[in-house]
């Protein structure tokens, strides 16, 4: 049985102007939640604002029974949340959706989070590190103050690459640029290495980087999965990179939601069937994580 949780608000503080983190005591939920899942928070008891607001789980601690949200104030729902005082009861529905998946073995993975899309990568990185993986994290945001999670990712032993649109921290521009450089460099290194090995072994190869070569190289790097969360134009670029480099991607989407549980069909996304036909899936209950391959990018 799914349930609504009356969680106790343990912490609610500003990380930066308009950026907040919230910790909730919700033991039952914390014990079953997985990285990539989300919750729907009720804003008030009145009829306005009416709908719950969706937030990805930015922290899951079954031991202490806590969950964590990181949210940005963008409208009146999040504005009101930012004024909630600790001790208050928060009505939370969740965990919802299907989270990210991974294999319980070592290997190299890449995480890319744009803006608030950083949030669900935090518990994911934790899980991946526990599974023994080598994790490289790309974080991007509009400006330095909106980058969060850096200490947590570092502490987990992830390699970090940063980008801000205004250049206040890391690469100046979109996160996808350093990510693409990284993928390209990794793949080429592997290609060169192989070529070198091959030439040392006597064989001769032309140095043309075809897509096939890059994909070939990527395989050699040991990177076997890309995880990303962020605005949908960002996910589209990631989806592109994923197919160019043959690196499977798990992408976490956002869409306007009403029910959050799969009943209203509000949060549609076009998904390709294996036979190439399209079907309309629900971001909330069929997602929010979809593979780069199955998503149909319209336009």
């Amino acid at each position, binding site marked *: *049985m*799914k*349930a*609504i949780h009356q969680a106790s608000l343990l912490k609610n503080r500003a990380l930066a102007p308009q950026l907040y983190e919230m910790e909730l005591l919700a033991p039952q939920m914390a014990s079953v939640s997985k990285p990539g899942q989300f919750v729907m928070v*009720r804003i008030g008891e009145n*009829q*306005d*604002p*009416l*709908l*719950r607001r969706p937030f990805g789980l930015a922290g899951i601690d079954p031991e202490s029974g806590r969950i964590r949200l990181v949210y940005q104030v963008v409208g009146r729902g999040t504005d009101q949340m930012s004024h909630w005082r600790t001790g208050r009861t928060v009505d939370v*529905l969740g965990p919802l959706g299907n989270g990210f998946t991974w294999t319980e073995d070592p290997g190299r993975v890449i995480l890319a989070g744009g803006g608030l899309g950083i949030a669900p990568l935090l518990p994911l990185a934790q899980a991946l590190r526990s599974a023994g993986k080598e994790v490289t994290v790309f974080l991007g945001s509009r400006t330095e103050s909106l980058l969060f999670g850096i200490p947590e990712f570092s502490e987990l032993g992830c390699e970090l690459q940063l980008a801000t649109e205004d250049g206040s921290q890391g690469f100046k521009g979109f996160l996808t640029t350093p990510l693409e450089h990284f993928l390209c460099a990794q793949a080429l290194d592997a290609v060169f290495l192989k070529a070198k090995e091959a030439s040392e072994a006597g064989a001769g190869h032309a140095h043309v980087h075809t897509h096939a070569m890059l994909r070939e190289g990527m395989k050699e790097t040991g990177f076997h999965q890309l995880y990303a969360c962020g605005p949908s134009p960002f996910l589209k670029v990631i989806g592109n990179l994923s197919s160019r480099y043959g690196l499977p991607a798990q992408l976490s989407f956002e*869409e*306007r*939601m*009403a*029910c*959050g*549980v*799969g*009943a*209203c*069909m*509000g*949060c*549609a*996304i076009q998904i390709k069937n294996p036979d190439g036909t*399209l*079907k*309309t899936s629900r971001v909330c*209950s069929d997602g929010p994580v979809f593979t780069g391959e199955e998503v149909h990018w319209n336009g």
Partner: protein
Amino acid sequence: MADLHVNLAGLQLSNPVLAASGCFGFGREYNEFYPIRQAGGIMVKGLTLEPCAGNPTPRIAETPAGMLNSIGLQNPGVDAFLSNELPWLLSQEAAVIANINGHALEDFEEIARRLQGAPGLKAIEVNISCPNVSHGGMFFGTDPAMASEVTRRVRKHTSLPLIIKLSPNVTDITEIARAVVSEGADILSLINTLLGMAIDVKTRKPLLARKVGGLSGPAVKPVALRMVWQTAQAVDVPIIGMGGISSAQDALEFLMAGASAVAVGCASFVDPLAIPRIIGDLNAWLDREGFAGVRDVVGLALR
């Protein structure tokens, strides 16, 4: 324990609180919160003849005490309903009402034909009021002649209790009500959504991809209640009232206005347990106020 049973022109239900079409899918999702047989009945997501992919997103916009939707009847089609959804719903002992939709008169007829004889199906609700499709939809429900014609055609093909779902986007709802009753509607359900719109000031464009959508939720309750009250005085068939019901008090307002049963739509989104909560509170209220059965409340405010 007050008696919650209702009998709407032969449609027997264990209680008068139904799930509104399109707000409960085919029951699977809310069955993870409570056994859906607790609902008085389930009006499933609107069915079309063929599977339907629905409208582009955004399909949802919040408005003051309400929401706009432009789902566009995304559904697996009537055949998939019969083979996959209905058997499952019946295995859960749910009281199932099929909500049917068409782009043309023939669509309604054909769906009714396919549903005829479906074992376990309790009733057919004909949606002549969907504001979210370009062809058909609301068009059928805003013209008395068209509404009559749809009713007449479906009536020919079904022996099930026939519910016609009325559109609130009309000058005089009683005119449409009378027209469809005269063609054999057994029950009326109202209201479907009000046609509405929201604009995103940042992008300077309508918020919904399809520009307009259907307004529902608490905001529309006063309009819905007025229409139920008017219709109850205009026709003699039972009414299933809906529009903004989120509490037993709301449900009682509709019952007192003349509805024999009610349906809960987007309140389930806000509170997945809305339906069992309303049933429980309704029962408690009836006991407290000394009513033997819910039937005794129907129409109290009409006197």
